[in-house]
């Protein structure tokens, strides 16, 4: 059963120390919830980016909330490098699990399908592989002459995403962002903030159905308008590039980052 809660109550439901799945900026990212988590003082997260991170991940790093980061990239897109990420890497403040996008998807697919691992082509010879103890080079069981990588299943404890719409049953419309569907299938629990709540079932319209995350995967829903600002929400509203630039400029120093986060709070 999906619970319907306030954003603040949802933030209370995400404890420190969990493996947290997050969507890329603009495809289901929820910086407003990230701010609530930071205000609450969340710590020691193992963040899984599906498959890359942006502003919301940089904010969590800046706040010292991430201990392990599993991602194929962290970037502010057109704005450039993610400042807190770069600083944390230099200072050794986070344990980095550098990945490559399809390997993240393979790990999530393994969790989705309930298998302990998934084979994936490529990767051999890269330093990405050299630094991942949870990936192994094996022999293809059907061809003893082929070496092939296997990656372990990735099962987030909680996935936190923003979506256009949920209904009162807990079904959530993701549209063609099927990587978020995969992330939710792979996760033990999924928490979703939405722009609006539909009073009719989203599964009533057969044409919508393929883009609906069914309620059985959705532990809680909170209505939270504009919660993807400034990173944008796919097919709903655009990135606010000026605000991301403001953030990037401010976050160049730890003090600037703190000041940005405080002013964001007072503005809210």
């Amino acid at each position, binding site marked *: 059963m999906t619970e319907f809660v306030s954003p603040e109550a949802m933030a209370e439901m995400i404890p420190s120390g969990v493996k947290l799945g997050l969507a890329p900026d603009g495809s289901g990212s929820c910086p407003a919830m990230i701010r609530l988590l930071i205000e609450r003082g969340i710590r020691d997260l193992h963040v899984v980016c599906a498959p890359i991170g942006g502003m919301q991940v940089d904010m969590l790093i800046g706040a010292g909330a991430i201990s392990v980061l599993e991602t194929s990239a962290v970037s502010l897109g057109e704005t450039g*490098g993610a400042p807190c990420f770069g600083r944390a890497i230099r200072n*050794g403040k986070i344990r980095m699990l*550098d990945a490559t996008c*399809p390997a993240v998807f393979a790990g999530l697919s393994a969790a989705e399908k309930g298998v302990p691992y998934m084979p994936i*082509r490529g990767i051999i010879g*890269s330093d990405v592989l050299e630094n991942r103890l949870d990936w192994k080079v094996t022999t293809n069981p059907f061809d003893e002459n082929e070496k*092939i990588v296997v990656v372990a299943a990735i099962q987030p404890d909680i996935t936190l995403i923003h979506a256009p719409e949920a209904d009162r049953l807990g079904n959530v419309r993701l549209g063609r962002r099927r990587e*978020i569907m995969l992330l939710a299938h792979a996760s033990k629990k999924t928490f979703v903030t939405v722009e609006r709540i539909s009073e009719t079932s989203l599964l009533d319209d057969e044409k919508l159905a393929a883009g609906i995350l069914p309620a059985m995967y959705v532990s809680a829903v909170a209505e939270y308008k504009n919660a993807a600002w400034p990173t944008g929400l796919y097919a709903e509203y655009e990135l606010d590039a000026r605000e991301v630039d403001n953030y990037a400029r401010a976050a160049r120093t730890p003090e600037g980052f703190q000041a940005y986060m405080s002013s964001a709070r007072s503005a809210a």
Partner: protein
Amino acid sequence: MTRECTNRELLIYTISRLLTGVRHVAVGMSSPMPAAGAMLLRVLNKKRGLGDVQVSILGSVKHNAFTSGSEELFDCAAQGRIDAFFLGGGQIDGKGNVNLVGTGGYPNSEVRWPGSYGSAYLYFLVPRVILFREEHSPRVLVDQVDFISAPGATEDGVYRRGGPHALLTSAALFTFQRDTNRFRLESVHPGRSAADIRGMTGFSFDNDHCEVETPGPDAETLALMRSQVRTELAETYPQFAASLPEAA
């Protein structure tokens, strides 16, 4: 009188030449030059009655036919449905290795870039990977990358049908020779010499006294670039299109 071909136009035209024969090319949302080259090829093919070229712009809602999430690009590449892809790189070395992660140690890199994205995979599975980086300097084109995001060459016993096809910079065009795992200088862009290229490149390469000048587009092609291609580009990359010369 037609304005002369600019360096950017030369690069776009060269990209279109490197893509000759492809049916489906994927480009990143923040890669207007590869997209422009692919769109030029599409226009030229149509004009010449050749096959259609599908251009998938990742991250675009409109110019993106994928409907199964961002994993579909990788699945599609594995299925052999993507013929060409572009990789940049903070560093590219003489063996075709690409570094998208950082320099000065790992994991606590002094300079950290975003990360490897899909490179460690697509470099193996997309037949024609074009390395494209406008900056041509010993800082970027190094003898040995600090971190291998994606290797240029692969030992036996590992499935690989793709890899580096060419390296294009604002100064020169190299091809990659898979038998020797070395770059070969194919042509030097107008205004540069082979000696310039040797000085600007941090790795050794074959044919390093190359005297071929990179050919530019003919007047008709240049006119197409400044009209139809520019218009198509503007739909997705309005700022970039505005920076290109327009037909008089």
